């Protein structure tokens, strides 16, 4: 095939969606039966999907911050891959939220068109990155909790949410495994790695309590969502198993009370989220017409 220029060659018949690899995303749920089932409150379903999407987007962003900063190239690829999985989950969940509340908002509109105060992610996800050990502690807690949550959501009254969850379960199992391997390696490692892993866990584990605390959006989404109190037992069992393998004290975990400042699910966030959202949205705000 002969083309006059490279652009023509890659666009072939002005099929603009193909102008560069991975661009021109259409609605990721296009063609799916997206009707909200009878008996399901669309607004409650949307709010619930939005919160799960915000968790994934914010956690994905924190993981992306490790790119060019990770201790080795393979680790950088691993964290970028995990971030990409979460970004994919966020896109599907945002799209589902836009269908469920009838606004037909797109994933980009949710990600780039909302203020930090309207994010509903758990605070664990927005914590600024610490050292590598601390962030592996966070990834372990986040992925263990989200894995338990998505496993339970495969029985959701909303078949689309259930299908998104079933896909996510497979991905989260890899994320959890990756974090667990590091926690064991660092905890059962040198004196220094052990000290830093211990410190990292001490920083992160107080944020666990929020994960098991029902917010209004959980209560309104009964049947569609999962009662977060039911996740405590499987998550703690998994953490105990991993921390024991890491020769770390699994019993020393003090269940901290829910943050006095409120729940991320209710819109109470730390200052850190503002900076994250500002960076996340900077290109979209500088050029609102941009597509990618």
């Amino acid at each position, binding site marked *: 095939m002969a083309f006059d220029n490279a652009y023509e060659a890659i666009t072939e018949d002005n099929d603009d969606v193909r102008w560069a690899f991975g*661009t021109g995303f259409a609605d990721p749920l296009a063609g799916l039966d997206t009707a909200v089932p009878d008996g399901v409150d669309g607004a409650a379903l949307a709010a619930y999907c939005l919160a799960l999407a915000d968790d994934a987007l914010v956690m994905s962003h924190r993981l992306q911050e490790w790119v060019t900063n990770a201790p080795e190239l393979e680790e950088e690829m691993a964290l970028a891959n995990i971030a990409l999985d979460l970004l994919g989950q966020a896109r599907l969940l945002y799209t589902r939220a836009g269908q469920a509340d009838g606004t037909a908002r797109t994933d980009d509109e949710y990600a780039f068109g909302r203020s930090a105060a309207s994010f509903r992610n758990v605070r664990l996800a927005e914590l600024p990155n610490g050292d590598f050990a601390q962030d592996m502690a966070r990834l372990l807690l986040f992925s263990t909790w989200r894995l338990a949550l998505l496993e339970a959501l495969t029985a959701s009254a909303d078949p689309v949410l259930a299908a998104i969850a079933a896909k996510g379960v*497979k991905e989260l199992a890899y994320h959890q495994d990756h974090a667990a391997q590091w926690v064991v390696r660092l905890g059962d490692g040198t004196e220094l790695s052990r000290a830093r892993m211990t410190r990292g866990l001490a920083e992160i584990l107080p944020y666990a309590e929020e994960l098991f605390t029902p917010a209004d959006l959980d209560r309104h989404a009964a049947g569609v969502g999962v009662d977060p109190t039911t996740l405590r037992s499987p998550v703690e069992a998994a953490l105990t198993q991993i921390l024991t393998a890491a020769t770390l004290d699994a019993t020393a975990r003090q269940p901290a009370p829910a943050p006095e400042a409120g729940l991320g699910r209710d819109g109470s966030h730390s200052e850190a989220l503002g900076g994250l959202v500002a960076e996340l949205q900077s290109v979209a705000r500088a050029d609102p017409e941009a597509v990618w």
Partner: protein
Amino acid sequence: MVRAREVAEAVTDPELPDLTLAELGVLREVVEQPDGRVVVSLTPTYTGCPALGMMRADLEHRLHAAGFGRVEVRAVLDPPWTTDWITESGRRKLAAAGIAPPGPAGPGARRMGPVEVRLGATRRMVACPRCGSDSTEEVSRFGATACKSLWRCRTCREPFEHVKEI
């Protein structure tokens, strides 16, 4: 006349260009409607895989080029894609391209229920696609694409990629 199914099945994966979408197991259904419309059902591999948009575009492009004017590509999420759907010929092509094909993911590969982790030496054996040696080691669980991990052969000393069981 060429059937829409044949055209769609011959479209290759953008990241694993030796494999067709049919061999990868992501092509669920190709239906020619009485009104001439072609409806293709496609399953994403990983949720965030950027190849999905490319697959959609490639399918539409090839079907248009084959004379099918109206093409609709639908996403199917349920049941989720598994590497068990990669066909035998797909597995042979992967190996021939130096990529170790996935082992069985199986229905019980990821049991539903309590969250548990398998730590320690329960790693699966992956044979080197170059020399066939079973003496291999995983370098990184995450590779150049979401679906692959990075391995090394202790016998021939070559690195290779492995499509992860999912």
